[in-house]
């Protein structure tokens, strides 16, 4: 029972980690909460569902299309809603409201055009179980764990070794100095949003397959914010650890206490954590900088 709960928790935690990394990536560069991220995830799931079910594209390819689509959407989101604010050096409050507006816009656009119906992926993946060592696990969960790990490792490798990755890391420390050293910050930020969007595409596909595809499914990113806060906003290793911790804790609470308390638990954890440990496990800043 204990091991089983732990493994199930890790599977959910993997998706949380994926979303939290995408969210933290944007936060580390632009220092604001990208509330539009949930809608990008939702649209990624819709794109994946559409190409899989209506165009007869195989699953692996439809995941890829969803990744590309979400990445482009996230990029367009930045260019349309944030880039002017960025050039004006607006405070993060304005970014947040713009992000909020984007999220309301996209969510209701889906309501108005596609409708509020719930769409379920075919139950090929979700029904199969794998068991090893007395622990049984859905094939989808195995995929989620493996895929999240691969995606996060890939991102890590990219950030550590590629030229763009180094520029992104430099910009997250100090945008101005980075610019002075000849980095095209505009391009770097574009890359950040493309990467975050790609992660949104993957997590959207997994969420859609695990639960369903519907307009408000982006709500789950609230959990990603919590995960990011646990790890420390803007810290990528923190987001991974925070996502896994949150996933495991939530699963334990719903297994041993009750599933009703689960969400109250997560949100209370958020508020308490912000009070006791506002920097999270790996965070760097505490108070507003001048």
């Amino acid at each position, binding site marked *: 029972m204990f091991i089983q709960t732990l493994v199930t928790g890790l599977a959910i935690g993997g998706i949380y980690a994926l979303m939290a990394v995408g969210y933290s990536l944007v*936060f580390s560069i632009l*220092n*604001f*909460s990208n509330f539009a991220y949930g809608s990008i995830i939702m649209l990624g799931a819709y794109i994946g569902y559409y190409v899989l079910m209506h165009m007869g594209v195989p699953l692996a390819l439809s995941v890829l299309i969803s990744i590309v689509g979400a990445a482009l959407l996230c990029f367009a989101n930045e260019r*349309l*809603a944030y880039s*002017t*604010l960025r050039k*004006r050096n*607006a*405070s*993060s*409050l*304005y970014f*947040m*409201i*713009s992000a*909020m*507006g*984007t*999220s*309301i*816009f*996209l*969510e*209701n*656009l889906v*309501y*108005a055009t596609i409708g509020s119906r719930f769409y379920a992926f075919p139950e090929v993946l979700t029904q199969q179980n794998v068991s090893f060592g007395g622990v049984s696990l859905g094939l989808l969960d195995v995929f989620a764990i493996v895929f999240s790990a691969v995606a996060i490792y890939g991102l890590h490798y990219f950030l550590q070794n590629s030229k763009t990755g180094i520029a992104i890391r430099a910009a997250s420390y100090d945008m101005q100095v980075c610019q002075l050293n000849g980095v095209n910050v505009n391009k770097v930020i574009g890359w950040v949003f493309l990467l975050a969007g790609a992660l949104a595409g993957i997590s959207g596909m997994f969420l859609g397959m695990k639960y369903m595809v519907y307009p408000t499914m982006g709500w789950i990113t*609230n959990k990603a*914010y*919590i995960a990011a*806060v646990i790890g420390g*906003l803007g810290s990528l290793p923190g987001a991974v650890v925070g996502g896994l911790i949150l996933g495991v804790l939530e699963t334990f609470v719903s297994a041993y206490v009750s599933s*009703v*308390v689960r*969400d*109250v638990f997560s*949100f*209370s954890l*958020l*508020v308490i954590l*912000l*009070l006791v440990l*506002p920097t999270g496990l790996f965070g760097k*800043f*505490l*108070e*507003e900088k*001048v």
Partner: protein
Amino acid sequence: MLEYVSGIITFSLIYVIATVGLAVFTGFTGLFSLGHAAFFAIGAYTAGILTYFYDVNFWAALAAGVAVSSLVGVLIGYPTLRAKLRSDYFAIATLGFGEAVRVLLENLDITQGARGLPGIASETTLPIVIVFTVLVLWVARNFVHSRYGRAAIAVREDFVAAEMMGINLFQVRMRSLVFSAGCAGLAGGLFAHYVSFIQPGMFTAALSTQLTASVVAGGMGSITGPTVAAVLFVAVPEALRMASMWRLVAYGFLLVAIMVFRPQGLFGFREISWQSCVRCFRKKPAAAGGGAGQ
């Protein structure tokens, strides 16, 4: 028809009360709350439960609603404001608080969970709401022009400088937060006794966003701007009811457009007053719309 119009006015004014409260907080201290629906819900449920289960007098229940949501404001504000959280952290903390309150309301026995409270006595009338709106506007105006209000503006503009001038950041922010929580509670109590049915699903993050959006769209640092925006955000969707899905699309679009093209809000710092109407009229005789033309 008359009843319908007066209904819309009542709703608009109830939202105005909550928005003005939030305008004093967000607009004058610069902190961004994403959980004000929770205060609204606490006011609505406190007042609703008191009249529904305990037959308490309407006015006493209303006062209790204000008191409880102000108290919760103190409880949530004390640790978060004391810790001087960055504005992002504060926004996420209030988001978490709002969701936690909603989930709690869905699972408590006294609130009857997701079924809600049907058949609360219908006590709120248009004159009552008008009186309260005027009262809240008057208090907010006095607050803004008082020493406290000026301190709050100083904090919003540059809190490091303000703190060096001897302004107690925590106190200033706390005072505004409690005032806004109280206003939201009052609006909630009036709302519960107007629609006579409340359920947790009415107080989602969408409501918090609407309140914050009214403040931002109306202009941070203005009282009348958010008032007009709040009325518009309730009345215009009502008028465009047939396009009910698209109005929210337009609303999201509007928020982004305001941030991109007119970040100071529709009215900026300006207040709409008799003088500004006259001034506007003289400058541009073509703009017959009055103060709203600017």
